[in-house]
């Protein structure tokens, strides 16, 4: 290979990295088709879409920037309560509430991130946990505002765009969530393929190197932490608006953990990990967990161990391996 051909090749690869591939349309085709094919499952569908947004927020910080957190529910809950409180106090316009929820979560992310992001490893893990615990405790304490353990009642969410009422069958909820997920995906995709996104991967892979090439590592981590917090906040707001209820559980450790597990199953550090992991987990739970919940816990535990030991990249990682093997045999 001469340098004349090598140069365009390398450059091509760089320039083409962000271009839309055909398979990337698949989630939207499936999402749209599902609306017509499974009209009885739209409520579940909406919650899956919300789960994907939440998982996507985790993917951005954990998968791309390597920030291991167990407290992402703090932002989800902040968003849910923002939207919930607005709707309970007379402002039921969903879109503006969504923006407000994202903003509140982002501010929370910015402040908490500025405090904790200088630490690493177990210490960071603990700090994220502590913050989400404190927030949950605060929401429990502030019962007169949040409804405490009984949940926030009396939300009145107005129709989307003034036209589409949230209906019993979850049609509006589903399409609304699908639209928001689409926007979130566009944003996430842009971030991931931008120089900023690349530098995050750099920080995750090799922080010392990023320092050495003059990258403001702390600042970059803080920016993505804030963005991811906004994503989580929007997801929380969607849940509040579509269920018209907010319970303390939105801030729980369990929610953070479940989001993480779904992401791992799909594949961490891949844009489409959440798109695979969340539906897989939630549909399986809906189908099989009824049969015997005790076994469900057992099998999920076993699955986690198997994924970690044998299939680190989750489902997408396995698919990659399979493709590589096929290519080799061909």
């Amino acid at each position: 290979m001469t340098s004349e051909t090598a140069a365009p090749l390398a450059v091509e690869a760089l320039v083409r990295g962000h271009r839309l591939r055909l398979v990337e349309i698949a989630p939207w085709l499936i999402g749209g088709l599902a609306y017509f094919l499974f009209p009885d499952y739209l409520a579940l569908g909406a919650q899956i879409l919300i789960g994907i947004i939440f998982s996507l927020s985790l993917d951005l910080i954990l998968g791309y920037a390597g920030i291991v957190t167990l407290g992402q529910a703090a932002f989800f809950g902040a968003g849910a309560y923002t939207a919930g409180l607005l709707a309970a106090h007379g402002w039921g316009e969903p879109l503006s509430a969504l923006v407000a929820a994202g903003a509140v979560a982002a501010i929370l992310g910015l402040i908490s991130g500025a405090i904790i992001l200088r630490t690493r490893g177990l210490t960071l893990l603990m700090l994220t946990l502590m913050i989400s615990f404190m927030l949950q405790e605060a929401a429990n304490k502030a019962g007169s505002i949040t409804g405490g353990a009984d949940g926030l009642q009396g939300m009145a969410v107005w129709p989307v765009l003034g036209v589409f009422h949230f209906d019993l069958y979850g049609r509006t909820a589903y399409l609304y969530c699908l639209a928001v997920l689409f926007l979130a995906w566009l944003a996430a995709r842009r971030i991931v393929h931008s120089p900023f996104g690349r530098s995050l991967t750099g920080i995750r892979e090799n922080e010392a190197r990023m320092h050495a090439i003059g990258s403001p590592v702390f600042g970059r981590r803080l920016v993505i932490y804030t963005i991811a917090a906004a994503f989580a906040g929007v997801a929380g707001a969607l849940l509040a608006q579509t269920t018209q209820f907010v319970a303390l559980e939105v801030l729980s450790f369990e929610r953070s953990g479940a989001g993480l597990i779904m992401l791992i199953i799909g594949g961490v550090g891949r844009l489409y990990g959440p798109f695979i992991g969340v539906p897989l987990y939630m549909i399986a739970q809906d189908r099989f967990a009824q049969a015997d919940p005790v076994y469900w816990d057992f099998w999920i535990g076993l699955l986690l161990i198997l994924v970690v030991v044998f299939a680190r990249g989750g489902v997408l990682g396995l698919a990659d391996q399979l493709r590589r093997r096929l290519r080799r045999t061909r």
Partner: protein
Amino acid sequence: MSAALETTGLCKNFGALAVASAIDFRLERGARHALIGPNGAGKTTFINLVTGALRPSAGRILLDGGDVTALPQAQRVKRGLARTFQINTLFRGLSVLENVCMAISERLGVAGDIHRPAGSRREVIDQAYAALERLGIADDAPRLVRELPYGRQRLVELAVALGLEPKVLLLDEPAAGVPSTESGIIVEVIESLPQDIALLIIEHDMDLVFRLARRITVLVQGAILVEGTPQEIAADPRVREVYLGEHVSP
């Protein structure tokens, strides 16, 4: 005229252990300077202090006359300080070109861009490509770093540092781990670096040191033992005793 890099009274303690004690060091513009010393002498600690990876316990660091002691690493890089690592710290899963692009994006201040796709800036790619060409590894541009032999990776390491257009370049054992057949290329590359870059080379390989360096500083137990021209160092009995005696077979 101020030095390219200067430290005064630089100290670093880990608890009761002093790993750098009152180091006064001066790196002239365009210098070819080597820092040598036995294992555990504190050479890498010194580099980490200069680059800002470690905070000094006392003392000052001046870059081009300006005090950078309190600045974070990124700011020092912006002021023209670059380094290579003793063990390759490249992004092994990325292409050679991308590795260099990362550094150039940072220098051009476009790495924080969140809107435009990476690869959409022609100037970044062109400059990265130019850096590779200068080191003669442009052919490897599209290959993943992990697919390259180690010697080649050392060159990429250098290309990344050069991409930052440094005024001061710290080379931490540039030929470490490279088979002697290939180390020649690295030496040639280093010799051909632009003369306005001040080089500080940390090396164990004495042949290489004497070939590249015009001045040598010997570090022992966190303190400077002696500094001088290669001839002076080679003749110094103290150096022979603590250092050369151990490493160079008679």
